[in-house]
């Protein structure tokens, strides 16, 4: 166990504005920087999705307002087909990596890991700062690609070669695709720096008494997500470098004798499936990087607002670990119809459906936590139970797609779009919203407006279902994804156009509802009700620090932990929550039901859960 740095040994509190707020090494400031940057990327991605809806809903029709705002993408008032593909590609890329990954790991990881572990800061504050600035650089490169000749990358967020390898294959496959690959590589560098910090901090900087099995589930989820990222992202880095070599130095990793635009490319021996393996070796763990932290956030918020211990804490921890492990061996389910060996497909089917088991266990545990609780419904709780609903809906459709036989029909149709948007765009985003509403008072010392928050929840909850649930119907009918228009397809029922219109209206309402959220953020920063240190009456450590916590978080004395994070409504206790810092002599604990608890554990080491076993 590394000894905790004291207030003196942690980096000095900076005094200049630049050092304090811009080039800051304070994890809380870096968290806010990540959240703002990622949030902006999310807004850009959202606007892109609106643009994509236009030709789908009103094929061939002129939309003068949009054409006026984005003259480069429209022709005769209509979004061009190549611009559609560029928007689609950039929407996926921005949302998956630059919004969700960045806000969950960079934002919530930075904010919560040191505070909930009881550390003064991250293990490597300078690397942490560097991670943010490198991330910002990757954002700028990615955004710059929107303005180059030929437009942004247009080969999909999955960037399958040869489309992404040969400039003549699609308009965006010129400089746009090169910048896409460079931006992704830079992003991965940033995420590795972040990941090393998160893992090291959780392992080494937990405060006295904070054994691993006393960590709140948020930290467990972020910890495992960081490990997944650290191990999976480098595969994509390697893949991106190889693709750059194929594009610019004439290698043949992914190419074998193709003819594009009448031009014969004499490359030999490569195979596009190699990219698919490398991409999805990251790509699938990536979706668990995006869903584990929301699962942790939701667990925390449900326990707090049910005023009950999270049901089956240990099962929750083990399922997080199981998901983390299994996430590495399911990637082939993206490739059932790719030409991959059929035995390999069968193996990936097995692992894919197995990973549904820990996810199911977690869902039942959330229900178990709600059962016989005393449920409060502040906005974070609404988003948390909204998460449970959408996670079930989106998770179940994965059982169709994980079955290779059914996937033959559903692969690359709107059914897939529905599936992953209900899990990623809805559940994971609900986790983000729940987290922002819940920890805003800790970050800024003020509560967000509940009225606006609830309105925001209802519009978003119903709106998201309105957007993505009907996409299942389109998928049933066999509507292929990544299509600019469907005019040629005879087999689609004529009323698909009515469904498209319904989806688009839902999308515009839901998108507009996010303005309420932005307004609430800004309004609450200045006008929000002042928050006390522990407005939710929660147990975890961050609520023992002032709101907002000072530089170094804990003042003179480090917090000492005597109990787990879920002592809610313990019989015999004086109130329905007991912070982790309250000694066992003062209040009883429910931590180890089957064994008497003796003295508080004074080593913060992971081996300390001697009673938990």
């Amino acid at each position: 166990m590394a000894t905790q740095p004291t207030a003196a040994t942690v980096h000095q509190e900076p005094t200049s504005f630049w050092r304090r707020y811009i080039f800051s090494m304070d994890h809380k400031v870096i968290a806010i920087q990540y959240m703002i940057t990622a949030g902006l990327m999310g807004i850009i991605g959202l606007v892109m999705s609106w643009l994509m809806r236009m030709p789908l809903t009103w094929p061939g029709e002129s939309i003068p307002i949009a054409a006026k705002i984005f003259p480069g993408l429209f022709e005769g008032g209509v979004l061009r087909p190549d611009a559609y593909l560029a928007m689609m590609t950039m929407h996926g890329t921005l949302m998956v990596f630059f919004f969700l990954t960045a806000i969950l790991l960079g934002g919530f990881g930075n904010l919560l890991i040191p505070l909930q572990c009881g550390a003064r800061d991250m293990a490597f504050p300078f690397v942490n700062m560097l991670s943010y600035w490198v991330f910002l650089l990757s954002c700028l490169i990615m955004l710059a690609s929107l303005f180059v000749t030929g437009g942004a990358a247009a080969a999909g967020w999955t960037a399958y070669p040869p489309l992404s390898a040969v400039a003549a294959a699609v308009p965006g496959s010129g400089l746009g695709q090169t910048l896409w690959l460079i931006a992704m590589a830079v992003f991965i560098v940033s995420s590795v720096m972040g990941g090393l910090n998160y893992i090291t901090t959780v392992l080494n900087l937990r405060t006295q008494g904070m054994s691993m099995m006393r960590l709140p589930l948020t930290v467990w989820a972020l910890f495992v997500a960081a490990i997944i990222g650290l191990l999976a992202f480098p595969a994509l880095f390697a893949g991106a470098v190889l693709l750059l070599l194929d594009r610019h130095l004439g290698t043949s990793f992914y190419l074998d004798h193709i003819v594009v635009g009448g031009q014969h490319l004499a490359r030999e021996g490569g195979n596009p499936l190699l990219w698919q393996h490398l991409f999805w070796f990251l790509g699938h763990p990536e979706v668990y990087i995006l869903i584990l932290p929301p699962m942790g956030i939701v667990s925390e918020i449900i326990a707090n607002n049910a005023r009950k211990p999270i049901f089956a804490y240990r099962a929750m921890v083990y399922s997080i670990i199981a998901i983390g492990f299994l996430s590495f061996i399911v990637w082939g389910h993206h490739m059932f119809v790719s030409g991959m060996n059929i035995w390999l497909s069968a193996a990936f089917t097995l692992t894919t459906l197995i990973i549904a088991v820990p996810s199911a266990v977690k869902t039942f545990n959330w229900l178990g936590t709600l059962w016989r609780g005393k449920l409060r419904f502040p906005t974070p709780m609404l988003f948390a139970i909204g998460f449970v609903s959408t996670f079930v809906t989106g998770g179940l459709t994965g059982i169709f797609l994980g079955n290779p036989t059914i996937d033959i029909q559903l692969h690359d149709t709107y059914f897939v779009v529905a599936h992953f948007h209900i899990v990623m765009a809805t559940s994971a985003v609900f986790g983000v919203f729940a987290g922002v509403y819940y920890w805003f008072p800790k970050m800024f010392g003020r509560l967000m407006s509940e009225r606006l928050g609830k309105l925001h929840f209802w519009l978003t909850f119903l709106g998201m279902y309105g957007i993505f649930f009907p996409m299942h119907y389109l998928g049933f009918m066999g509507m292929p994804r990544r299509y600019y228009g469907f005019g040629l397809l005879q087999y689609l029922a004529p009323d698909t156009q009515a469904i498209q219109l319904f989806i688009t209206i839902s999308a515009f309402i839901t998108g507009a509802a996010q303005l309420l959220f932005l307004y609430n953020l800004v309004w609450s920063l200045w006008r929000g009700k002042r928050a006390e240190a522990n407005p939710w009456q929660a147990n975890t450590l961050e609520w023992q620090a002032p709101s907002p916590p000072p530089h170094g978080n804990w003042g003179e004395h480090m917090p000492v932990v005597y109990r787990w994070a879920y002592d809610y409504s313990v019989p015999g206790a004086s109130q329905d929550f007991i912070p982790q810092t309250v000694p066992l002599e003062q209040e009883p604990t429910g931590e180890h039901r089957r064994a008497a608890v003796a003295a508080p554990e004074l080593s913060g080491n992971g081996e300390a859960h001697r009673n938990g076993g």
Partner: protein
Amino acid sequence: MQAGSVHGVLFAVAVLVLVGIGVVTIGDQWWWLPPVASIHGATIDALFTVTLVVTGIVFILVHLLLAYFVWRYRARSPQQQAYFYLENRPLEVVYTLVPALTLTSLIAVGTRAWFRIHSSPPAEAMPVRVIGEQFAWRFQYPGADGTLGRFHPRFISEENPFGLDPEDPASHDDIITTELHVPLNRPVVAYINSKDVLHSFFVPALRVKQDAVPGMTTRFWFIPTQTGTYDIPCAELCGQGHYIMRGQMVVESNAAFEAWLAQQPTFSTMVGLSH
């Protein structure tokens, strides 16, 4: 009433309404899969239905529980006490094992069907090569010798846009078309290639989908069971014209098929090969 607890009631109602909409629209098949037109397609549909029923039950049950708990246990009075409850080992074991066993059964039937669909095609199956290119499908029939001539993009030239090997005698009598005609009730084995980028040979009505990968040949065999004309959209993003890359498959009687095929020129006449 505690502040905010009205939202628990609202949430319960909203969830019930949403589940109701889902159950009605899907249970009543308001929008559905295209009518199936192949033998293995019926298997896929059967599995789809089984999975829909299983997941549907879970979807309804979990949402009913969620709605009930949120409504029933909303904070109503300051005296209300949350029930301190940590875990329940037998219950946890049950709700780990039941999903595990259910999923195992689905895997078992799913992979069995998967291996049957991808088994070796019957000997009498008619071979046809499907060639994807930006943004069209072409189809190569073996001709009188029953053998498909060699295909490779390096043979593509202005005179020979199809990429068949002019040196391969098997290619001379081959027939290249832009429409895919197949006889009813006869196994067809499609060998799928691409000239340029990835494509995916998708016939929604026949439940056929297999990527066309440059540099390798993929295979999918099927038995059409309904006559008709079916769309062949490309299902793998292939460039700016991806959305207009659509071919047509005509399933017809054997006589009609033979008559159609006899009218098509052979490869050697098309590219002017001299013998």
